């Protein structure tokens, strides 16, 4: 599998990272180096092997589905780059 410029641009878009057009060739090269390294995994016989979901065999803990925390909007907003009237503010999302 080789990554072309179009794929590199698509991945950048999916990751929501702006990559200038002139930086795409170098990025695609790096992807190809890393993916070339990862390709080794194809040598392994994984027939009938379950993909790991949890490294320790324990079952995740359960608790009642109830509210346990809250009522601290000032704390939640204290690090926001732009907070107004108790809300996070972002650029307009609808025309």
């Amino acid at each position, binding site marked *: 599998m080789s990554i072309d410029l179009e794929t590199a641009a698509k991945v950048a878009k999916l990751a929501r990272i*702006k990559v200038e057009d002139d930086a795409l060739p170098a990025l695609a090269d790096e992807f190809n180096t890393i993916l070339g390294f990862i390709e080794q995994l194809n040598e392994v016989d994984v027939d009938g*092997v379950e993909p*790991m979901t949890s490294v320790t065999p324990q079952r995740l803990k359960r608790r009642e589905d109830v509210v346990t925390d809250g009522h601290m909007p000032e704390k939640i907003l204290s690090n926001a780059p732009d907070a107004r009237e108790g809300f996070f503010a972002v*650029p307009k999302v609808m025309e």
Partner: protein
Amino acid sequence: MTELNKLTLAEARDKLRAGDVTSVELTQACLDAIEGADALGAFVHKTPEIALERARAADARIAQGDAPAMCGLPIGIKDLFCTKGVDSQAASRILQGFKPEYESTVSQQLLDDGAVMLGKLNMDEFAMGSSNETSVYGNVVNPWKVDDRALTPGGSSGGSAAAVAADLCLAATGTDTGGSIRQPAAFTGITGIKPTYGRCSRWGIVAFASSLDQAGPMTKDVRDAAIMLQAMCGHDPKDSTSADIPVPDFEAMLTGDVKGKVIGIPREYRMDGMPEEIEKLWADGTAMLKDAGAEIRDISLPHTKYALPAYYVIAPAEASSNLARYDGVRYGHRAKLAQGDGITEMYEKTRAEGFGHEVQRRVMVGTYVLSAGFYDAYYNRARKVRTLIKRDFEQVFDSGIDAILTPATPSAAFGLGEMAQADPVQMYLNDVFTVTVNLAGLPGVSLPAGLDKQGLPLGLQLIGRPWEEGDLLNTAYALERAAGFVAKPAKWW
């Protein structure tokens, strides 16, 4: 009398309890050492006022006879840990100015025990790196120096390693996703343990790869690792993967007696082109454990070769998901927008400006391996290989092996900038001996065992059974005593 900042945790604890020294004196000695060590780049947010306030509180507590082991002991905290009201930015521009409203469970437990935070320690950005060269704060320099080169302290816990090795603090917290405690410990001649996955709560630690991340102590010796790990461990309802099992008294388990223990030597860790000195160190370590009464057995971990490629699918995949939260909305950096820019441009520009090159690369690799059409070929295949890697270890432990001895790193510390022209995979090879342990969720400890020809420290790694950190630390203690490593870097900073 030894300078106070040079004490181990155990020595300082005993002196505090005996009334020979105060926490304020210990803390001031460390603060003075930190002030004179800017050339190392280890401490990036200094908190002297907080430190002295906590030291005074610790002294009052000790005077009342209520003193847990860590009470009054000055330590550094890796920048990856959220600390209430104190900058916590994972060495990334995207978290510039972020001051958490909460404290991570691990740092809270240390605080509850009376430990004194001196400040936050430098690291690779989001813990992604093996040389501490991806930090927004700039490089950390290894206190060890053998010529005019500035050497890497390793990564990602490079600031923690350098600070402990240079006696700027008595000990420090680290985190380890693929070797980030053990590799820098080896490069700086100190001890570091990554406990079993689930031992330390991950709550409040900036997430990199959640199925691999574990916190652990970085200390001057094995006893200190036992003392500090004790304070960091324990069940936390706020982390759903935190293990609800008792934590034994690790320090009490340090007897140095390894008679009858079976130590495995994995043949797959003998890499082509491995430096002779590393081979010799490994053979010497094996002989020391044998002399101490352990039985040595050759073992095989056949899927070792596939650990790094599996890691470089799984870790970026999890990182791409975890780092999706840095969007310029809730905290940290937001890019300045142009006229007409919408929310998508805000995300894209913020993340391009806020993330460094290595972080961007890993997020995008992770995005790719999780994307439609490639999920099975990459991500699921890597998770299957991970199952096989864990099975290798289970079979070895089932056959009666108590611990596995390997080199900690494939080389001694290298020069900062020396890997700049290498492709990213060359840097990833630093973690070849450590990354298997994260994939299998096992405890692993790195301890200094000798110097190379240049005079730089080299480390050995011991890997233990799940939840048996106490036994593992005891084996490490026996090895430490036999190796007798006492070298310290000569002060040049």
